[in-house]
């Protein structure tokens, strides 16, 4: 399909978040290492990685909660260090830990947020509060984890942010609440054209709602791409040889450009490829070892995720 070549064009639009060679250290230990990342405006960006990979640290630099030790952080066109107030006026942030005041009710939270925000749309907050069915007369300390997340999201919407930065917004939610929360996020908020950046350690929820994905591990960004583009460029090439291919040939295959990994089982070889799989397949077919069959298969994102995680730990 011709469409295949057009992917990635959307990424050239204005960026909501731009990180360049970000470096964050906790004492001597490097928490984020030379991380560069661009989140296009209007994207739903899933920031994926295991716990302790550096997701929260990266997010904190965006809000100016922590100053980077190197590199630059630009959010909505503002420098996150020098113009942190401008950033915070336009960004809705939800921290990883529940950060609401347990001794306040919803109207009290609204009053507080109103007093510290540049603009406030109470109707909008009320709309989300009733959408989630949250009780307005109870202290937030009595809320469940899911209700607190829903309230935090509702409060964010009061200041009409252009960008939402959510740190593990579904952590501690049961699968149904998690699904509901993400659906609301996309159907109600992303649909309005707001950019959403959320971190998660669960692949399936990123896959379900995000259109961009960044995978971080040990403070390094391993992948950062449009999901559709990833699906198009990462393919599995299954080769079946007529005779058992010699070890030299297998080594050669492994070294071909675009081959990310190789698994061999007798006469069948499975290649995880990146880029132009067609021309790679032609290159292989042109070699002297006869092939019985060549198949190009779509890659499961789960495979890819696990693959990246494994690759990184092998490399160390």
């Amino acid at each position: 399909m011709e469409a295949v070549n057009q992917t990635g064009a959307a990424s050239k639009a204005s960026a909501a978040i731009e990180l360049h060679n970000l470096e964050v250290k906790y004492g001597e230990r490097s928490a984020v290492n030379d991380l560069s990342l661009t989140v296009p405006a209007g994207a739903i960006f899933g920031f994926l990685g295991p716990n302790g990979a550096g997701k929260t640290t990266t997010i904190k630099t965006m809000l100016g909660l922590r100053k980077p030790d190197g590199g630059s952080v630009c959010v909505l066109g503002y420098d996150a260090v020098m113009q942190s107030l401008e950033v915070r006026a336009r960004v809705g942030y939800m921290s990883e830990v529940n950060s609401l005041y347990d001794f306040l009710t919803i109207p009290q939270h609204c009053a507080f947020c109103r007093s510290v925000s540049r603009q406030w749309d109470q109707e909008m907050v009320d709309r989300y509060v009733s959408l989630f069915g949250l009780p307005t007369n109870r202290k937030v300390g009595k809320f469940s984890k899911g209700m607190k997340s829903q309230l935090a999201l509702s409060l964010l919407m009061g200041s009409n942010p252009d960008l939402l930065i959510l740190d593990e917004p579904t952590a501690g939610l049961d699968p149904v609440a998690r699904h509901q929360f993400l659906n609301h996020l996309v159907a109600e908020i992303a649909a309005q054209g707001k950019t959403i950046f959320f971190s998660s350690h669960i692949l399936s929820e990123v896959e379900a709602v995000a259109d961009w994905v960044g995978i971080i591990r040990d403070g390094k960004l391993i992948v950062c791409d449009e999901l559709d583009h990833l699906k198009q460029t990462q393919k599995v090439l299954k080769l079946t040889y007529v005779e058992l291919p010699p070890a030299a040939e297998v080594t050669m295959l492994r070294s071909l450009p675009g081959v990310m990994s190789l698994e061999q089982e007798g006469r069948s070889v499975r290649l995880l490829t990146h880029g132009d799989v067609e021309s790679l397949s032609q290159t292989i077919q042109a070699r002297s070892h006869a092939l019985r069959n060549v198949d190009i298969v779509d890659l499961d994102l789960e495979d890819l995720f696990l693959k990246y995680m494994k690759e990184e730990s092998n490399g160390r």
Partner: protein
Amino acid sequence: MVVKEFIEARSQLQGQIQQLTGSYDGYVWSQWFSKNGPDILAILAAVLGASLIASEVNKGTIFFLLSKPVSRDRVLLTKYLVSVLILLGVSLLSGVAILVASAMVGHPQNVGGVLISTILLWLGMLFVLGLALLFSVLFHDVLRPLIFSLLFTLLLSIPGLISNATLNAWNLTFYWSSFAAYQGTMFPLKALLICLVAALVPVLLAIPLFRKQAY
């Protein structure tokens, strides 16, 4: 232990003063402005100051607070000012209570003296508050700022245990209360200025520290 000895030593001192004056006025002054007042209010100031930032960090609400488009200086100063006003309120209330109670038992006190002593006491307490605030920025739990600020204040008053004029000049707690001012015979300008400067120092240190602190 140290605290107990310290308090005992101090009571003895107050006793001497009381003997010296032998008056009801002297009794009231030594009981509240020189002894219980500073002790009670110092603890209150330490509790208030210690929890200002540290409890927000401890409960995670600091992220909610600092993600709003408000500068850290404003956050810190607003919180500080609220505590300053609470301390002022409590100081004034106790001053009024002394005036009313004394009048009821037939020993009306000098209103100006009570007022100036109350202000002096309040200014003195702002040092403890500021110190607790400074530790509250430095530590991420409430207990350490509380203990450290009280211990530090206690250490500062050690020179006062020895009745020595030179040493007393370096005893901050010495300036918190002045019997002459209470009696209305002297305006404690020097004490007021010293208490004011002492109150400002920890706050001025806390502001840039809070600005740089990573959460």
